[in-house]
């Protein structure tokens, strides 16, 4: 039981149990273990980069949804606002904004589908993880370019 408690308190997992704080006295020896989760000093392998970009794109999409819902509002409110939006979306700046949002959606979706494969037990080895990350990058890159061509 002691050894499992140690692994529960690993700095790589979220600390949920009181014993991890050393209050109960279960773990005192390991409290001073060095922790290095400084992203600037860790060289991220491709699967880690794919993973953290999923989070970054997710946070970006949370903000971008305001733009999409605003556009949906303008597109359905009246014929005047629909035509005004259509005119705005034709300008290079708005095209770029839409392309960036679509790119984030494509990347986040590709990585999300990889997660579903992972849930089904596909690609759980080290080699499988690296291959999966490469597939996500390749598929997302192709679709993002295709979306860019369609938008312009």
């Amino acid at each position: 039981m002691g050894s499992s408690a140690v692994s529960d308190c690993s700095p790589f997992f979220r600390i949920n149990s009181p014993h991890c704080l050393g209050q109960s006295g279960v773990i005192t020896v390991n409290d001073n273990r060095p922790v290095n989760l400084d992203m600037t000093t860790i060289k991220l392998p491709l699967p880690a980069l794919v993973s953290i970009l999923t989070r970054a794109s997710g946070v970006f999409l949370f903000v971008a949804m305001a733009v999409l819902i605003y556009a949906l509002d303008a597109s359905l409110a009246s014929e005047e606002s629909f035509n005004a939006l259509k005119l705005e979306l034709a300008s290079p700046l708005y095209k770029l904004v839409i392309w960036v949002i679509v790119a984030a959606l494509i990347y986040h979706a590709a990585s999300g589908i990889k997660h579903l494969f992972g849930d089904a037990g596909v690609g759980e080895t080290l080699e499988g993880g690296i291959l999966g990350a490469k597939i996500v990058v390749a598929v997302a890159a192709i679709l993002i370019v295709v979306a860019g061509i369609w938008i312009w």
Partner: protein
Amino acid sequence: MVTAVTNFGRSGLYDWLVQRVSGVVLLAYFIFIGAVVVANPDMSYQEWRTTFEPTWVRVFSVAALLSLAAHAWIGLWCTLTDYVTPRMMGAKANLLRGVLTCVCAVALFTYVVWGISIIWGS
């Protein structure tokens, strides 16, 4: 200390499941909207409006909005509790995370209400 009691379903397994289901709903919805837009490049206002007229499209839209709120909440909660912590940012981190969590909750609630009013109000 970051505890699980403030997450969406008060259980990691439940959050994991909600994240999958909501993700699939959102994927289906964005493919649907993308297909409509790509299939009709020079759409008129009337055509676009007609797309959102059937009841099933409105129900699908509300499902997507609720999925967005749940999906973003779980994702943002995970991200905030991983990075905005006392170990990463010092003593003020818990207060900051509380404020950011509230901002996320208010924004997502606004998205849902705003989106439903667009879909059902027009």
